């Protein structure tokens, strides 16, 4: 704190007013340029996903429903496959080679 006080005294005594104004102006413009560049960059970023909370909620909800649909289909296919394998193991589908030919 003491060092800051000394620097402030130095500024008050030795630097002319116009110089202080110049330093302030330059720092203001630099800050302004940096903030506007950051704003520009943020503006450049293109929104690639619906940004409203309602739309996002709908999309995530649909994703969950889609996975439930997939899981249900997987269960149905699994059941169907098990039934097919059971019938194949019984040999019901196989052609009887000794069956008499019907005219």
């Amino acid at each position: 704190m003491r060092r800051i006080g000394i620097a402030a005294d130095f500024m008050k005594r030795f630097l002319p007013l116009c110089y202080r104004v110049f330093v302030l102006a330059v720092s203001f413009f630099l800050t302004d340029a940096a903030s506007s560049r950051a704003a520009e960059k943020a503006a450049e970023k293109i929104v690639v996903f619906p940004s409203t909370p309602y739309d996002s909620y709908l999309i995530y909800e649909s994703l969950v429903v889609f996975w439930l649909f997939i899981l249900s289909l997987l269960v149905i296919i699994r059941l169907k496959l098990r039934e097919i394998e059971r019938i194949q193991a019984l040999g019901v589908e196989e052609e009887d080679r000794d069956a008499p030919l019907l005219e």
Partner: protein
Amino acid sequence: MNYPRLKDWLDERYDWEGIKRLAKSKLIPEHRYDLWYYTGGITLFLFILQFVTGMLMSLYYVPHIDFAHKSIIEIVTKLNMGWFFRSLHHWGAQLCIAFLFIHLFGTLLLKSYRKPREMVWVSGFILLGISIFFGLSGYLLLWDESDFAATRVATGGAGAFPVIGWFIKAFLRGSMDVTGDTLLRFYAFHVAILPILTLGLIGVHILLVQYHGMSVPLSLGTEKQKEVPFFPNVFYKDLSIWLVVMGVLVTLAVLLPPEIAPKADPLAPPPENIKPEWYFLFLLQTLKLFPGEILGLNGETIAILLVACAILFFFLIPFFDKKSSRGEKSPLFTWIGVIYLLYFLTMTVVGFLS
């Protein structure tokens, strides 16, 4: 489900019962490595999805340097579900190439390329090359600064190839640098030339697989394997896996939609730490290993020549591996395959982290 009239209609014209008998007579060996059979089916499914999503986007895309970037932004921000289809197309491409590599290394390590299936390997390998070119050409269509710089590097790298490099570079770019001509050329490749080649090659590849039947790994010996009919047993398993892949793809598309970088400016310096797509990272890292000059020769040219030789050897492996074509085990080529795989994975991870 039973539709007797439809069945009769088909039977009268196309011998429907004969087709059903044929589908049921196709048998698939069942063993502990049969999971690898499904990687080909997954790739085919992803190819179909890419065609569908690509067709949808081509309805709105404008292949011109002044409008290309804008049209992509409009697809993503203004069209109903446009962001979703673009994201699906992006992630579909990543997964498709990843599964192509898995399918390739699976085929290599199980020696499924051995006699008489050499041409199945050849057609599949060309399909992988075409898919990578699909990725490269699709990458530029965004016309944003990172893709523009990556295409400049990739086409410039092709130019370092000895003797024919200048021709490849000029052919790809269509002018001295990456310009509007390159964009139009890549668009033509992406939506017309490559799809036709892909369709033809997929047809040949599937036809050859049907003709030769599924290969059984040598390590399982010569004893008779248990076989199951393709229809309905394997068909239903294929369907289940496709459903899971579809779920993963949709989840990726929703949770990680790809960003769009600012529009490309040919006069601006390239952005820092520019990286190509993940499947080119191993190539980029290999080029970085070489110094600028080796014995007075251009280091990049030597690196590209060595990589080309390694890829050519990889492509011709079925013709070098005489042991496995005689039905004997060939551990040398298993090790070669493992080395290729490890090199690819290591360099990709290093390239990703660096």
